[in-house]
Every structure is written in C-alpha cells, then in structure tokens.
C-alpha cells in the first residue's frame, strides 16, 4: 500500500506563446515518499507544478489523484482535493496579516462571522510548530523574506491532506530552518502524504528524498531511486553533460588582495543595525554570514544608501563619500544585487534586455541613451555568459523562471562594471551549473580587481570564495574571520556565539 501512487501525471504538455515549457512529461508520486523534482533553471519544474495544481491549464496529458482523473480548474480546486502547495517566490499577500494569510478562505467563524481572536490563536499555535513566535496580527510585509517563506510553508502543510508540493522552499532559509522543515516533512511522510520537493541544494536532495525526477528543457529525463543515483550521474542527467571541474573551486584562495579601497567607520542606523567598521580592499571578496534577521541585508542597504545611516562615515581611498541615495552610490561605482528579487529586483513588465541595460542606462542618464544595438549586444552577451534561459531577449522578465530572473539581475549590475559589488544571496534559486558559474564569476571578477561583499546563507560557498568573512548576530557585527580561519566550523561557532538564538 505504501508504495502505491497517490498522484500520477502522464504526457503533460504546456505551451506558452513562443515557448513549449512542458513536452509530454510523466510524473508519479507515491504515498509516503518525498520526491525530488530537479532540473536546470527554466527546465519546467514550476510549470509542471502549476499544471498539477490548476494554476495553469495544461494543454495536454492527464492527471490522476488516487487513480481518479482530476482537472483542477484553479488552485482552489486543488486545495479542496487536498493538494497543498508552496509556489516559488513567496506567494502570500503582503497587505494581509500573518494570520489572515495562513487561514485565507477557511477562517474560523462564529455565528457566520470571522472570529479574529480564534484565528490569531490558531495561527500562533500553528507557527509555534515552526519555532516562530511573531505577532500574527501584523501585516505580512513587516517580515523578512525568510519569515514569509516559513509562513508560506506552514500554510501549505496545513492545507495538504494528500499531497504537499514545495517549490524551492529552502531557497531563503538557513540551516536551522531547513532542519526544522525536514522534521515536519518527515512527520507528514510518516502520515502517508506524498511530498514533491524542488530545490537546487544537492545535500538536501540526498538528505530527504526517496526518489528523484529530472526535467530538462521541458522534457522528462528520468526518475531514479535516490539511493541508486550518485551525484555525478545526477548532474549529468540535469545538464545533459558532465560538470567540468567547477565546484571544487574552493580552497584556491587568492591571498594577495590589493590596498584598502573603501573604509566605513561607525556606520549604523538605530533599530536597523548597530554601528560597525568595515574595510574593503581592491580585488577582495568579503563574505557576510549570519542567521536570518541578523541584519545582513540591513548592512548592505546601509552601504548602498538605500537606508540613510544616522551615524558614521564612508571613505574611498581616503576621500569622503556621502551615500545619500542608491544613485549616489552607483555614481561612486557601487552595485547592489538585492535579496528580494521580486520586490527590489525585477521590473516585471520590461523585457530581459531592458532589465539588463537598466542600471547602466540610469548611470549614463536619460539624455545619453544606449542605442538599441548596444542594448542588444549587452543583453546577448550576458544571456550567453550567464546562460539565461529565455526564448528571446524581448520576453518580459516576469515570464522567466525564478533562477533566470536572478541571473538577469546579476547581469544588470555586471553591465555597469562596478568597482564595489554587493551581492545579497546571489546564488539563491540557481541551478548547479549556474551556481558553479557564478562562483567562478565572483572569483574572476575579484581577480580583475573588483571588490565584492557577498551575503549568503550557504557557508561552504562563502568559504569557497571569501578572503574574509564578517559574522553578524542580532543586528551587530560580532566577528571577523580572516584567511585560514575562514572555515565553515568557525563561522558556525561565531554565529552561534555563547547564546544560541532561537534554540529549538
């Protein structure tokens, strides 16, 4: 019984104007199994999910739940059928309260009226299971991506009677939250639910999944038992060829960073981040580690003039700078690739080309437009270089897959050829191939003398390319690891400090 299929999809076809996203894909999910769905950026994972849950109407193929053919007209239908889903990109409503988001459409009622007290109580109870103790009546927007992600998961889990689908749920979570998530997934598994799990983290795939299905360019490559599939083969399945010596770009440290280029003294903003000193050398990569909410993004936003510091100074090779606005920072050769792609990054309706050209154009000013030719060349170069999967450069960027959007934003900043580039979670949601590429990219950039500040929750990644790592805790810079001390263990040590935050 345990091995019988709960959800089977056969010959799923989905065509978008100008793109066949899915081409006869078969997929089988068993009771009580965790099924990893893998593939490069743009392979069609999210599309497949959306076809299963009725978010898209499929153009062909059949879907069965417990052997009964189903055709959910919209996500509501799917929910009713007991399919809970966390879509890629946090898909919650920022203007509603956390509790309302959790119970939208199924609020507890008394005398036909919604009972807020009751709802909030349940919401708190629900989140308690995720070690999260936050004000559930506050609007969702007041919380970070991470918190929102956890809430989205909680909601989906609560909704899923038979099937739980998670599309890159761990993208913006740190190790601790991931561990917690896995604990919950295992419980559900034990209860006999089928769980679909999309991610680009191999550790997680091997840690939790029973079987793996791989897609490439909208076609099914195959389904394997996780136990019988070595990493190397998995990579080959995904990319269609082997991954040349990339991932072990690790211990190749470039010790000889140039002279100090930027020096920040006592920079800080009350309520956001405690004053800190920071020096960045030419051709140096400074990593930044910390728990969610430790204030890494705040630090970055302060450096880039998004938040105006209420204390501290900033010098560039001795001369004073004022970073009143992003524009000012950009004029000084700064670049900032934000963490929240959807809200701070993409200009959804504009084409990939325009999104890539935007920052450069903004710096040149509107009077000196990049000619269409230049823009095309620019776009093409980065589409090729970062391997951005899109039918053509004129496609609205919102129609790109998540990972490819991330690459486009990165391209936007590389195009400005900055001296100092701040990357907040640059590899979030990016596939193995591209992941390796970006790490190589970071290294080649700093080899060419660019200074980088990289925020990431992936510690081994940080270790791989950082000369120095700053560790944050509770909105304070607590430690700095240099050279040989830059190891995963040391970072974890520093993050944990004496008192473990939010011990579970």
């Amino acid at each position: 019984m345990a091995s019988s299929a709960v959800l089977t999809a056969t010959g799923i076809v989905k065509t978008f104007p100008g793109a066949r996203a899915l081409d006869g894909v078969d997929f089988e999910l068993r009771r009580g199994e965790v099924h990893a769905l893998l593939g490069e950026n743009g392979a069609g994972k999210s599309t497949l999910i959306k076809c299963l849950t009725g978010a898209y109407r499929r153009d062909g193929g059949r879907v069965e739940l417990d052997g009964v053919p189903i055709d959910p007209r919209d996500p509501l239908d799917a929910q009713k059928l007991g399919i809970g889903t966390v879509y890629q990109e946090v898909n919650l409503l920022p203007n509603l309260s956390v509790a309302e988001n959790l119970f939208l459409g199924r609020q507890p009622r008394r005398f036909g009226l919604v009972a807020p007290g009751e709802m909030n109580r349940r919401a708190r109870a629900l989140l308690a299971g995720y070690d999260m103790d936050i004000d559930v009546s506050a609007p969702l927007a007041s919380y970070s991506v991470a918190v929102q992600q956890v809430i989205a998961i909680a909601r989906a889990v609560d909704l899923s009677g038979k099937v739980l689908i998670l599309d890159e749920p761990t993208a913006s979570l740190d190790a601790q939250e991931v561990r917690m998530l896995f604990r919950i997934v295992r419980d559900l598994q034990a209860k006999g639910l089928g769980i679909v799990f999309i991610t680009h983290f191999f550790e997680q795939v091997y840690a939790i999944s029973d079987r793996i299905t791989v897609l490439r360019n909208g076609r099914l490559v195959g389904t394997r038992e996780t136990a019988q599939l070595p990493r190397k083969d998995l990579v080959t399945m995904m990319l269609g060829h082997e991954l040349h010596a990339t991932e072990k770009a690790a211990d190749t440290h470039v010790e000889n960073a140039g002279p100090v280029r930027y020096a920040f003294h006592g920079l800080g903003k009350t309520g956001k981040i405690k004053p800190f000193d920071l020096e960045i050398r030419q051709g140096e990569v400074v990593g930044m580690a910390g728990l969610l909410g430790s204030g890494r993004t705040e630090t970055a936003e302060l450096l880039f003039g998004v938040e105006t510091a209420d204390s501290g100074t900033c010098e560039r090779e001795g001369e004073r700078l004022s970073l009143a606005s992003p524009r000012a920072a950009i004029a000084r050769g700064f670049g900032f690739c934000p963490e929240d792609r959807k809200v701070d990054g993409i200009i959804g309706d504009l084409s990939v080309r325009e999104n890539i050209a935007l920052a450069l154009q903004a710096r040149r000013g509107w009077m000196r437009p990049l000619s269409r030719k230049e823009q095309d060349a620019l776009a093409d170069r980065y589409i090729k270089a970062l391997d951005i999967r899109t039918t053509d450069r004129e496609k609205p960027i919102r129609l790109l897959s998540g990972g490819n959007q991330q690459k486009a934003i990165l391209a936007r900043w590389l195009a400005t050829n900055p001296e100092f580039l701040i990357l907040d979670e640059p590899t979030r949601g990016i596939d193995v191939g591209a992941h390796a590429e970006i790490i190589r990219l970071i290294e080649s950039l700093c080899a060419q003398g660019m200074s980088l500040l990289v925020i990431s929750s992936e510690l081994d990644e940080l270790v791989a390319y950082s000369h120095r790592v700053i560790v944050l805790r509770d909105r304070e810079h607590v430690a700095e690891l240099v050279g040989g001390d830059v190891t995963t263990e040391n970072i974890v040590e520093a993050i944990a400090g004496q008192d473990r935050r939010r011990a579970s």
Partner: protein
Amino acid sequence: MNAKTLPLYATLVIFVVAFALCAFQYPSMLSTRVIGNLLTDNAFLGIAAVGMTFVILSGGIDLSIGSVIAFTGVFLAVVLERTSIHPLFAFVLALAIATAFGAVMGAIIHFLEMPPFIVTLAGMFLARGMAFVLSIDSIPIRHPFYATLKSLYWVMPGGGRLTLIGGAMLVVFALGILIAQRTRFGTNVYALGGGAHTAALMGVPVGRTTIGIYALSGFVAGLSGIAYSLYTSAGYSLATVGVELDAIAAVVIGGTLLTGGAGFVGGTLIGVLIQGLIQTYITFDGTLSSWWTKILIGGLLFAFILLQKGILSLSRGGRALSVKGA
C-alpha cells in the same frame, strides 16, 4: 493602535479639529440641527461611498454609481407615476436592476479581462442614457408612502433631525464595516487588492469575488438612489452628476489606498463627513463668489490631505524608500 489603523485615526482627529474650528468661527454650527443636516444631506453620497470603498479596496474603481443613482431615481419616479405598484415593491425592483447591472460589469471585468475604469465608464454612460430614455423630464413623486417615510425621523435634543435616510446611511456603514472586517468575502476583497494573481494562487475565488464586489457596489448605488429619491421625492436624469468623484475622494480622504488592499470602510464615513463639513462651512460663510467657492473647496481638500500626510509621517518614521511595488 497599529500601523494599519493609523490613517483612520489621523483622519478622525483631523475631522474633529476641523469641526471645532468651524464651530469656533460660527458657533451656530454646533447645533444638533447642523449635525442632523450633515447626515441627511450626505446620506446618499455616504451610502454609495460604502460600495465604492469595497471596489477600491479590491484594486478596482466604479465610475457608474452617479448614473446608477440617477437611473434608480428616474426609474422609481416613472414606475410610481405610471403604474400603481407599491413603492416597497418598486424599491425591490430597482435594487434588483442595480445589482444585476453591477454584477454584469463585474463579469465583463473578470471574464474579458478589461480594466474596471473603462467598463464602469461605459456603465456610467449606459445608466445615464437609460435614465434619459425613461424620461428626460424631471418627475415628482407624490406617493403618500413617501410622505410617511419622510415623516419618520428622530428629533435629537436641540431640534436636529436624524432622518430615515441619515439613519440608513449609518446602518449601511455599520454593515459595510462588518462585511469588510468580519466575513471571508471581506478578506477576499482585501486579498484581491493585495494582488489578484497571488490571491488566485492562494485559492481566492477571484471571479466570484470580483462579480460580488461590483454587484455589491451596484446594490448600494441602488440603495443610494432610493435615498436620493426620498431626499428629493423626484426622479431627474441629470441628478448626481460626478457623484462618483465625490465618493472616490471620500474614500481616499478616509485613508484608503487607491491601489487597493489597504483601508477601512469606517474611514470613508469620516471622508464623507469632511466633505459635507466643507460644504456647510462654505454656505455658512456666504460671502464667497462662485469661483472662490471652488478654489476654497480645492484648498481645504489639499489641507486635509496634507494634514493626514503630516500626522502619518510624524507617527511612523517613514522609511527612505517606503514605496514597495505591488
């Protein structure tokens, strides 16, 4: 008092202060009579504004309400003049038509994916046009039942009257608040305002809700039409031109975001009263020429908005880049 309800309180404070100032300049404005008039004279606007609040909360807009009010008035007048059916039944008919009208607009907006602005603009033309076709002339309503309805009022201490329609407005607002805050439909409205696509992914029945919203707006506009025909005991196809703008202004002054998703029905009531207050103040002044009247209305409107902004930014240390793309 959290960040969400802040605009509401800000508006309330402004209104109270403004009223105090007016009363200081013209003590006779403090009479319950003036307050009674404030409610009665703005009843139809207030009632319609409730519907508008829902529409705007959902990220839409409804330009048709002014015409629907006029149409309802003419319809009632014509029916009561030419047939012998009882007003109550006529009311039911009118409400049915208005609701259906709204529902159809909602359906067009949802199924044909057309912008509400244009669909309801067409609706505005259509409703006004149908009113013309029913009767160009203004028709008085002499039915005794109207007299009885008008005779229903509660005399407040101080001679002010809380009339039927004035009371009706308050009731409608109460119900509106209840629907917005304490029903699943209400939450769905806010959800649509927060982002229709996301709402759909979260399982909000977008189609049903959209149609419901515009049907509600139509129903309330019909109600407002009844109020207006009671108010003037007549039907006139040129009546209530541009009421939709007054309603929108009331809603926005009441602290609701035109982009949808944030705001309160209660705020709209204050918005309506603020506008009524401006009118009353002007008539009390009685020295202004036609043009200075307009200029002053605009000026006061500006002053209110500015005050609101001020209070808000004072009470929350506005973030540098607080504009978040929806």
